[in-house]
């Protein structure tokens, strides 16, 4: 199997000398092609910082990150934008759709930036919209759509370019349970049908139960890992709850 993402001994420190906070403390893991990996942890456990480092938004203090065998730490600005538009897809908690553009245009933008041919743009956007079941709101503006539709539009924008890696930061954070389930079902289909590799950060056990594999972070370090294997999602969900309860202890916000 092809390795998409490799993180080696990643360290990210904040603050100046004297009062250093170590947000990520020596984290290593890798993600294979077609995997759906979750990163769980309480608020402040370093999971968002980890995602930011992988997405080139933040630069690590030490350690290396490889995407498809290529090191992405220390890329030049021009290489950064090239890497983002050709290899990465982003899904944010608050969608980050452009509110002056329709859903169609929001998705199309990811392609036009890459210089795709107009005919191909329309074809691929329609395909992505069909896959994420948002074909009926292509001409709507973000504020005319429901939160779930918005987030699925963002997901369509992230996958329409066939990126090597889709990064999702708390994608269900602002959704009601029904919309969240709909979105995660779509993630599963994306993952299965398109072999999309997804790295998702969440603190919600239900959301995490859709993953194949979960890394649990606490205070910046990987505390434990959990594999779903061939078991059902329901069983996996219970396992996750167990880990969270065992780890959580005094952290009431994880449940």
């Amino acid at each position: 199997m092809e390795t998409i993402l490799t993180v080696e001994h990643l360290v990210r420190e904040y603050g100046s000398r004297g009062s250093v906070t170590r947000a990520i403390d020596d984290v290593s893991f890798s993600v294979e092609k077609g995997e759906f990996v979750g990163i769980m942890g309480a608020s402040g456990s370093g999971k968002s910082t980890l995602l930011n480092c992988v997405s080139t938004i933040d630069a690590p203090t030490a350690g290396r990150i490889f995407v498809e065998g290529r090191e992405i730490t220390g890329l030049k600005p021009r290489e950064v934008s090239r890497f983002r538009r050709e290899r990465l897809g982003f899904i944010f908690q608050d969608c980050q759709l452009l509110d002056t553009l329709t859903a169609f245009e929001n998705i199309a933008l990811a392609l036009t930036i890459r210089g795709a041919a107009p005919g191909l743009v329309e074809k691929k956007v329609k395909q992505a919209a069909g896959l994420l079941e948002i074909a009926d709101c292509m001409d709507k503006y973000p504020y005319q759509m429901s939160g779930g539709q918005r987030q699925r539009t963002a997901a369509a924008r992230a996958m329409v370019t066939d990126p090597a890696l889709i990064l999702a930061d708390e994608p269900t954070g602002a959704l009601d349970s029904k919309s969240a389930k709909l979105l995660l079902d779509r993630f599963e289909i994306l993952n299965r049908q398109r072999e999309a590799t997804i790295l998702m950060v969440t603190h919600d056990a239900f959301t995490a139960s859709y993953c194949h594999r979960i890394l649990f972070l606490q205070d910046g370090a990987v505390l434990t890992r959990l594999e779903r294997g061939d078991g059902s999602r329901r069983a996996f969900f219970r396992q996750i709850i167990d880990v969270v309860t065992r780890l959580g202890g005094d952290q009431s916000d994880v449940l």
Partner: protein
Amino acid sequence: MFSELAWKNVRRSVRDYGVWFLTIVFGVCLFYTFNALENQTVLRFLAQNPKTNIVESIRSLIGMLSVFVWAVLAFLILYASGFLVRRRKKELGTYLLLGMERWQVARLLLAETACIGAIALAAGLALGVLAAWALSAFTAGLFAVPMTYFTFALSVPALGKTALAFAAIFLLVMVYHAFAVSRCRLIDLLQAGRVNQALKGRSLGASVALFLLGAALLAVAYAMLLTRGLLRVDALFWVMIGLGSLGTLLFFRSLSGFLLRICQSRRGFYLKNLNLFVLRQFNARINTTYRSMTVICLMLLLAIGITASSVGLNNTVSQMAEEELPQDVSLTFYPDGEEPVDLPALLAEGGFDPGRDCAFHLAFPVFRSEAGQAVARSVYDAFAGRWGRAAADAFLEREQLAVRPDGEAQGAWVNCWIFLADYAGDKQAAEEAFQGAVTALSELGGYGYTTRLDTWMDLMGTKVLVLFIGLYLGVVFLLASAAVLALQQLTQAADAAGQYRVLSLLGAPGKMRGRAADAQVALAFLLPLALALVHAAVGMTAANAVIAEVGQVDSAASSAVTALLLAVVYGGYFLATCRGSRRLLGTGREARGA
């Protein structure tokens, strides 16, 4: 407690208030400079000349035009205030949520307005005094006015007028704020951050219909202007202005939708790079910008029109100076006694010897004949021999003289003596000698004279006035519209920073984002300019018809000067705005940090 909160707010939202503050400072500066115009060095120099009653006419002209300038500035400041309230909706919503009464919030805004307004007024006046002084020095140098006339002058009436005018504008702003607060709903205020403006999707049909209606109104206004001319100010004139303004408004209102639909139908263009983003951003803002675009277009029209006409008129005036007088000096003497007068000899006694100082001179009596005042045939022939038959006929016509045979002149009753001459050698020295010699004549009778140099000075005065007021107003309007556009674009750029961050995360390279930012600034700057140029082309055709009645029109020179002014002022602002918006949007780097 309120004043404390208000002062804290002002300090905290310096960036938001910055736009408002700059607009007011700029407006106060322009208004003062304009009203202090009569204190300008060049004009005080002209006022020394008792023959030209220029200062009085300037005073009334400024009075009329400053009302217009005031209206423009009031609109701009109200516009900036509306922008400010929109940006702070969430904050105002929080006050209401915390249990503040509406009138208390209105009072808070009032205190803030008063606070920032007072500072801005003071800063604007200080800047205005400096600007008026610098301009005075510059123009004085330009027109070669002796430096003895140049002093640092503070126009107290202009100061008072400016303070009063802006106090009135602040009052309007306060009323506007109270109105805005009393009308708003809490839910809208708190959610203002999500959708900053309602995006009304107008259909293609509506956009096309509005566009065509606007074009038709403009065509009617153009036709009226070209057939009726520029100077017939009656009821229909105002109808024409109204139609033109309304047509311009409709044009901008429908243009973005129209443009968007056309581009959308051309997929190859629409789905390329960030084109769709740029067009959508432009269209989303048109609901709030079409009014200001209209005003800016009309201000640009004024700037272009005034500059071009004043330069055109100035060249025409220069031409007239060349044609006015055929001879260098013309003296008329009314003797007290009845005995014949030898004017050349009298002048020679005073130090101006026509035999030495003149290349040619002619002295003759005007006598009473049966056909009224007349000159002798030989005099007419001499005149025509020196300055041409046409000039001789023009002279007779102007003085209402007849030509009689030489015999009739003998013993006839002489009304006056005329002395005509062209100087030899240094004309300036000869003129001074003449002016020194001619005073002696007052002991013998009354006299009057005109010299070519004198007439030239008079015309120069008119020329200075026309050019000065014209260029001044032109620059004022040009600066005002460019500054407003720059402020508007920069604040919009600040609003769009989040969107450009998303573009960076999607992988749009800095160069592409920079081009998109430039395209947005270019649309805002060039669309009003384009329509204003069309308006101006039609308007100048009408204006040139007026100038052509006085003299020959030099449209090449006026176009060149106007184009230069536009390129320097408007182009400068355009480039500065592009740079500023690129900086605000961070197109030189990739998005970092969460």
